[in-house]
């Protein structure tokens, strides 16, 4: 909005300045012819001329220089359009003059002065438009140095403009110095033609045409204004003659020279423009391949983009891409060639035992083309082939075909090999991305497994007036293989279990859930521990895979007879603290782990033990993760430490003993990062 207002204000300013210019100049001229002293100061026309030029400068600055959306041809088009309007108006005037013929008005010097000023204004307006546009072209890809040169140039022009208005007549020494300076700066600036390289072939033609027309306008206006100025000059010198202005001449010269240079540079660039376009397309194609990994849904899209890009970059006619994979059969992607045709060429090349097809180091064009010639009915006469490498392993071949014989040069070979490399990287990235997604999904699933497994461990443990129980379990991985549980068999019997599945991780977690099922179904049947173990073994023998087993201890606590009956199946021995004697001991007894022995002999390998409990006794159940917890030196926590730790808090209740043990354990290992599952269950009798 603000820019628009400024454009209008500057336009209005230029128009008013111009009106004042005509009026004052005509008045002075009239006075001079009549030999009168003019009522207005003689410097007024020169002064308003400056104003007019400055207003034009800012008008075009806002209109052209600040307009971001203009591209190079648009800029030239603006200049052309301004010139066209100016020329049409000027030609219109000419037509009127022609129609007037040799009437008194037509030969009147004052009328001629008005016509001259209209033409001059149009001329300058066109010059300023061109000047502003050239500025943008010159300052394309600018450097600090270039900006400085341009600023100096602009200020010198301004100085010339002001100097002209003070000192009429362009013959002074200073005027010459200014003219030379402007000429030098102008030439330096004219050398900046970087924008030409970015025009495509069509744009170059357009630009040439537009520049040619700009020449025509420049020539026409220069001719017209000079003629008019000559005509007036014969009768009087008291008018604003632009030819005496260093500024006007300099800016005309600059616009002219830059137009000429641009014209020539574009003209000579025409034959090579396709090369630049090709390079640009290569860059764009590379970008497309790289971006395709993020946006495309499949590897297939990446392959297709690769084919399309490589074909268009080397002006080939067809291409195929063969992807080898260990699991599936070879996949063939084709572009501009049918699959049977491609297979036929492959077979032909293979049959001819041509070496170097997959070797990047040699120039294959000649060899392969020669061999293609011997293939009947093939339309292709040139073949280029490249391996696509992912992580140092060739996963496929890219082949580019041309109908022309000897159709590939070294440069093209290089380009396609770059494409093949880029494709390798893209495919690798794509696969990595896929892997990352997969891993993320596994992680999510493991999280679910963890929640499920957590729910397998009991939230509330059985307790009664005789004892209370506290338990703690922590897994090294997301899911673990430790299990503990309690179940009430009847009003005076409670079954307890602690179990450890061999190995850890997901497999262990599955087996643990099996153990839970077995415990819950067998314990309900009021089996004695021996029978429980035999049946559990029988069930597990067929469930566990080779090499897996479960160690467990199964207890039945009878609060009526105050007796514990238990069976140990390969599990860590129980630590039992007897309050009456104030002594603790590991219960040494016999028993093989579950799921190891696959026949009936298991019932002989397991024994039942019984002991009576008293008030204040503590029974510590644990898994080997506790005794095998390592400290920073790799020393195990061990049985002695465990016993010592328990004795420290022997008189506390179950929960306190458990918390003390776990905090000790963490203290000992010195890290939160444990490498095995560990579980403990403390039973304290009351």
């Amino acid at each position, binding site marked *: 909005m603000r820019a628009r207002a400024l454009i209008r204000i500057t336009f209005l300013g230029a128009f008013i300045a111009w009106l004042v210019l005509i009026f004052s100049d005509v008045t002075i001229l009239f006075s001079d012819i009549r030999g009168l002293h003019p009522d207005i100061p003689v410097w007024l026309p020169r002064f308003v001329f400056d104003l007019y030029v400055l207003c034009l400068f800012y008008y075009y600055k806002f209109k052209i220089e600040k307009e971001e959306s203009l591209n190079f041809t648009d800029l030239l088009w603006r200049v052309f359009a301004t010139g066209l309007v100016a020329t049409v108006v000027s030609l219109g005037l000419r037509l009127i003059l022609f129609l007037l013929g040799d009437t008194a008005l037509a030969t009147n010097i004052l009328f001629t002065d008005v016509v001259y000023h209209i033409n001059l204004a149009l001329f300058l307006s066109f010059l300023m438009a061109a000047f502003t546009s050239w500025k943008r072209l010159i300052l394309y890809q600018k450097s600090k140095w270039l900006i400085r040169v341009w600023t100096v140039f602009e200020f010198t022009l301004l100085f010339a403009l002001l100097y002209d208005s003070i000192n009429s007549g362009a013959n002074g020494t200073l005027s010459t110095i200014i003219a030379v300076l402007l000429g030098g700066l102008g030439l330096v600036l004219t050398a900046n033609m970087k924008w030409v390289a970015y025009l495509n072939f069509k744009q170059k033609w357009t630009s040439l045409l537009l520049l040619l027309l700009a020449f025509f306008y420049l020539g026409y206006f220069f001719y017209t204004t000079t003629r008019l100025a000559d005509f007036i000059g014969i009768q009087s010198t008291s008018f604003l003659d632009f030819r005496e202005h260093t500024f006007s001449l300099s800016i005309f010269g600059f616009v002219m020279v830059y137009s000429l240079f641009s014209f020539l540079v574009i003209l000579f660039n025409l034959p090579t423009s396709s090369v630049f376009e090709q390079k640009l397309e290569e860059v764009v194609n590379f970008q497309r391949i790289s971006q395709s990994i993020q946006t495309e849904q499949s590897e297939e899209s990446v392959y297709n983009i690769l084919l399309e890009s490589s074909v268009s970059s080397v002006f080939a006619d067809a291409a195929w891409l063969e992807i080898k994979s260990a699991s599936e059969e070879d996949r063939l992607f084709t572009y501009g060639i049918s699959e049977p045709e491609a297979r036929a060429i492959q077979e032909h090349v293979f049959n001819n035992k041509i070496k170097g097809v997959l070797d990047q180091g040699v120039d294959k064009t000649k060899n392969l083309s020669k061999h293609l010639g011997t293939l009947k009915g093939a339309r292709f006469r040139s073949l280029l082939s490249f391996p696509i490498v992912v992580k140092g392993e060739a996963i496929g071949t890219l082949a580019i075909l041309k109908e022309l014989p000897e159709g590939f040069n070294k440069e093209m070979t290089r380009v396609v090999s770059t494409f093949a490399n880029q494709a390798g990287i893209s495919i690798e990235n794509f696969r990595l991305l896929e892997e990352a997604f997969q891993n993320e999904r596994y992680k999510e699933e493991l999280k679910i497994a963890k929640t499920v497994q957590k729910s397998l461990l009991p939230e509330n443990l059985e307790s009664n007036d005789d004892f209370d129980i506290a338990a703690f379990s922590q897994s090294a991985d997301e899911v673990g293989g430790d299990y503990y549980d309690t179940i009430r068999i009847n009003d005076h019997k409670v079954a307890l279990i602690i179990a*450890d599945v*061999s*190995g*850890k*991780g997901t497999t262990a977690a599955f087996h643990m859930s099996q153990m839970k099922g077995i415990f819950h179904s067998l314990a309900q049947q009021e089996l004695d521990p021996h029978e429980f173990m035999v049946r559990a073994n029988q069930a597990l023998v067929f469930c566990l895979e*080779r*090499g*897996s*087993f479960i*160690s467990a201890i199964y207890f039945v606590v009878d609060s009526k007879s105050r007796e514990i009956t238990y069976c140990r*199946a*390969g*599990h*860590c*021995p129980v630590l039992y603290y007897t309050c009456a004697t104030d002594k603790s001991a590991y219960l040494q007894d*016999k*028993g*093989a*782990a579950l799921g*190891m*022995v*696959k026949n009936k002999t298991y019932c002989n*390998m*397991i024994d039942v033990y019984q002991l009576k409990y008293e008030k204040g006794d503590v029974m510590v159940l644990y898994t*080997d993760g506790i005794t095998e917890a390592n400290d920073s030196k790799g020393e*195990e926590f061990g049985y002695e430490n465990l016993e010592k730790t328990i004795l420290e808090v022997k008189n506390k209740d179950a929960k306190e003993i458990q918390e003390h043990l776990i905090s000790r354990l963490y203290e000992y290992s010195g890290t939160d990062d444990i490498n*095995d599952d560990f579980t403990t269950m403390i039973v304290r009798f009351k």
Partner: protein
Amino acid sequence: MVQIKRLQEDGIDTLAVIGEIDASSSIELDLSIAKSVGEGFKKILVDCSSLEYISSAGLGVFMSYIEEFKDKGISMVMFGLNEKVANNFSILGLADLLHICGTKEEAKQLVNELSI
């Protein structure tokens, strides 16, 4: 990490297990035993004198061969177990299922007796 060295003499295949056997390295142990069985050895000795630690997964490997050995008439004897490793075997109740000896000579004698 574990390293397993095999040495064949008098028709006896001796596997020297050096280092620690945990869940991941137990695969190596499994492969070595399978190789020995595959090559047709009927007498296998396992030298555990340099075995520093064995996890439940490692114990599972020995255990998993018990049935196969019985079927194929292969006898395996282990010797030189350190206290900690031996304790692990006995806790699991494996001591009754496997043949465990103190020294190599005893083991050799036992494996020869067993295979008769």
